[in-house]
């Protein structure tokens, strides 16, 4: 009798586990706090998680990183609007068979023309009026053209082999846009094919999304609606979450000291800390003497002691890494032993600083004759706080620095004008991928190479790793690039940030992606158990 009962019970349990539709609950409105006013709703035109988190669920990509996996990896891609894909023999043509019967939120059919016009605009075709700004043009510098074959087949023709190309298409920054909708609408009330439709985007108030009843993925999304309430004051946001006004905090909004408050005020809150793939780094103006000399830049890197940064800002949770996010969350970062050989990562900080002082003495500076500089940074706490610690550390190598807080709205304009000596900066990566990082930030012709770092050898290595199909061989080149960038003081990395996100226990199906905050915000697999 007992055996029969056990068999029935285990059978039932297996049935329940195997039928997720029984476990997930349909309905409910998810309320999320939002930290600021997104500059617009157009993901393709912006570079901030303030846009990706609320609007990613309005769209679909051709492919995406498996939303069930915490790590975005090139071998874990799943189909989205591209039902299947294939490469030609020499891997320069990537062909997608597109999903049929998909409709845009305004009822028009999705076809290959939409894919073509999106990527024509992204690679900088001036005939396309789809975008007013194009911050990731450099991602597609290898894309020769996009051709269509009927309404449901599209081919990306590349100049050369580029294994990262699929990863870039899978990023939260790569949604497919509709050809028939003008760019102004896409910035204010975008039309997508995704699980949620935009009802309203009111600045200083809220972003309201509702379930798309015609979503091509049957049974999804589970939630009826999502409301992002724009609450610029962080204390109010946290108190609002503790009081049950919000079901989820904004992505990585909870600092470690605030995490303790949340845990005491709302003990049942589920909180997860994860690397955001945003790193703190120093911008060194190579046109401002003495930083035109590589050894001066190296000395700055060698003055860094990561521990105070990590202890003060992250209670010891931040990660040590060079240009790429370190393992295990990072797919491409170099091993710890190798990292410790780079300037700025030595375990014996005093020895490293002694060497840096010698360099500075060689350049004519001393305790009595310090180098006076300004450390420019955005006038917001997450930039200012590390800048203050940096200023303190620079004193160890005869650099007397002064904080120069810059109005956040003109930060990049100032950097582009090279109107700074040293700068404290944060760099976030849309995809944990060497191509996106190196082409965006270090390639000599990139718009986002803020320091205008130019090194033909590095450009060559970047192209070389980009074309390497063997991942292990490619990693070795990536590490070589990271090493050279650190030695050149191209953009010395201090730490890789960790941020906490919290939600109520009734919210299920949340999978935060651990190597980029810009991905994984489709919300289609989340449901509310209440």
């Amino acid at each position, binding site marked *: 009798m007992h055996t029969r009962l056990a068999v029935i019970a285990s059978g039932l349990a297996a049935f329940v586990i195997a039928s997720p539709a029984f476990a997930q609950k349909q309905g409910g409105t998810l309320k999320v706090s939002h930290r600021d006013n997104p500059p617009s709703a157009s993901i393709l035109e912006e570079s901030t998680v303030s846009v990706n988190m609320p609007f990613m669920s309005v769209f679909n990509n051709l492919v995406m990183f498996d939303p069930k996996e915490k790590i975005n990896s090139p071998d874990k891609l799943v189909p989205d609007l591209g039902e299947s894909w294939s490469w030609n023999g020499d891997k320069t043509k990537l062909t997608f068979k597109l999903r049929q019967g998909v409709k845009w939120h305004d009822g028009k059919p999705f076809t290959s023309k939409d894919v073509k016009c999106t990527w024509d605009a992204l690679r900088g075709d001036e005939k396309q009026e789809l975008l007013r700004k194009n911050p990731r043009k450099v991602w597609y510098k290898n894309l020769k053209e996009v051709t269509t074959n009927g309404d449901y087949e599209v081919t990306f023709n590349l100049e050369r082999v580029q294994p990262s190309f699929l990863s870039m298409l899978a990023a939260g920054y790569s949604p497919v846009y509709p050809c028939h909708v003008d760019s102004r609408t896409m910035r204010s009330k975008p039309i997508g094919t995704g699980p949620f439709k935009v009802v309203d985007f009111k600045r200083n108030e809220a972003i309201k999304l509702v379930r798309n009843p015609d979503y091509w993925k049957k049974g999804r999304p589970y939630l009826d609606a999502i409301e992002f*309430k724009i609450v610029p004051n962080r*204390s109010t946001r946290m108190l*609002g979450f503790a009081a049950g006004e919000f079901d989820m905090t904004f992505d990585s909004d909870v600092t470690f000291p605030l995490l303790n408050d949340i845990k005491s005020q709302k003990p049942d809150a589920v909180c997860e800390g994860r690397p955001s793939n945003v790193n703190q780094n120093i911008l060194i103006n190579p046109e401002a003497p003495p930083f035109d000399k590589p050894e001066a830049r190296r000395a700055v890197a060698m003055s860094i002691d990561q521990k105070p940064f990590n202890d003060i800002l992250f209670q010891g949770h931040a990660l040590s890494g060079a240009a790429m996010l370190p393992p295990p969350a990072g797919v491409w970062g170099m091993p710890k032993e190798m990292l410790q050989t780079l300037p700025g990562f030595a375990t014996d900080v005093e020895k490293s600083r002694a060497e840096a002082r010698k360099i500075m003495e060689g350049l004519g500076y001393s305790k009595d004759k310090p180098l006076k500089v300004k450390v420019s940074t955005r006038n917001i706490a997450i930039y200012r706080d590390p800048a203050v610690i940096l200023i303190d550390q620079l004193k160890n190598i005869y650099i007397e620095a002064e904080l120069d807080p810059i109005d956040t*709205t003109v*930060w990049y304009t100032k*950097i582009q004008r090279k109107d700074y000596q040293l700068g404290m900066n944060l760099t976030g990566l849309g995809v944990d991928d060497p191509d996106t990082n190196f082409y965006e930030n270090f390639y000599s012709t990139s*718009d*986002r190479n803020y320091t205008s770092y130019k090194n033909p050898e590095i450009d060559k290595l970047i192209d070389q790793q980009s074309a390497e199909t063997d991942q292990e061989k490619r990693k070795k080149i990536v590490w070589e690039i990271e090493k050279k960038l650190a030695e050149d003081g191209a953009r010395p990395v201090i730490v890789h940030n960790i941020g906490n996100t919290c939600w109520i226990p009734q919210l299920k199906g949340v999978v935060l992606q651990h190597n980029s905050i810009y991905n994984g915000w489709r919300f289609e697999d989340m449901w509310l158990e209440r």
Partner: protein
Amino acid sequence: MGAYLTRRFLLMVLTLFGMSVLIFVMLRLVPGNVADILVDSAGIADPKEKAKIVAELGLDRPIFDQYLQWIGGLFRGDLGFAYVSERPAIEEIAPRIPISAKLAGLALFFSVILGVPLGVISAVRQNTGLDYMLRIVSLSGLSLPSFWLGLLILMASVQWFGMIPIYTNEPRSFIDEVLLLSIPAAAVGFRSSALIMRLTRSSMLEVLRQDYIRTARSKGASQTSVNYEHALRNALLPVVTIIGIEAAFLVGGLIVTETVFNIPGVARFLVEAILWRDYPIVQNLVMLIAFIVVMVNFLVDMAYMALDPRIKYAD
């Protein structure tokens, strides 16, 4: 009186014209324009894309043309397009005005309803325990920043009542709205009430020592009649002035209170628009504030006349 009103009207028009020129020029003197900022928000600084935005927004046209277009639009009731949201400015501004107006009105109501009676009580009970207590309360009102007080209220609400009085959903009824706004209004009005209370107290003390008050007392008028009929009306003259000034300064208090209590009002929106150099929004809102200040001043002048019949505005 008619000529005075005409003069006053012309002065108001001149003031508003001066303000329009000042705000228009000053906005354009601040480093960085909306094109810089829009490009900056994408983390790039591509001069070609920036130039495209400048042309699209008409910022490459002569400044005089831009000014004329704005003023001409104002006369036609066209406030232009918000640069950032790309919606008509009127659609952005209009829904926010009633929210801030209600908050400001409530705050002013609190400050007067608390400040004036407490000031009178403090004066007539001079140097008693009650007077000392009220003076301490008013001093704390003047020294506590409203954002700090607001945060304190929020923290106490969460800790003790498990709720937070912030504006996350549109109130369902007028009563709901008044209840929701009354807490931030009290936070922002506390400072003004303290100021009004102190001024009422000192003004009352001065009036209570006047000869005519002694005469009223000697004629056998009751204490209540002396205080409220004879003294208060004359003591109110400087208080009315300060209420007028406070009404204008309230906008400053509203900015932080709207931020802390997350109220989607016009004050917070103005700060945001300044940061984004959203010229059409800033210009129109500053003009609106200037208009309100000018009108309040005019009403204060008229109130003088009602309070003190000796005051006449000669033709």
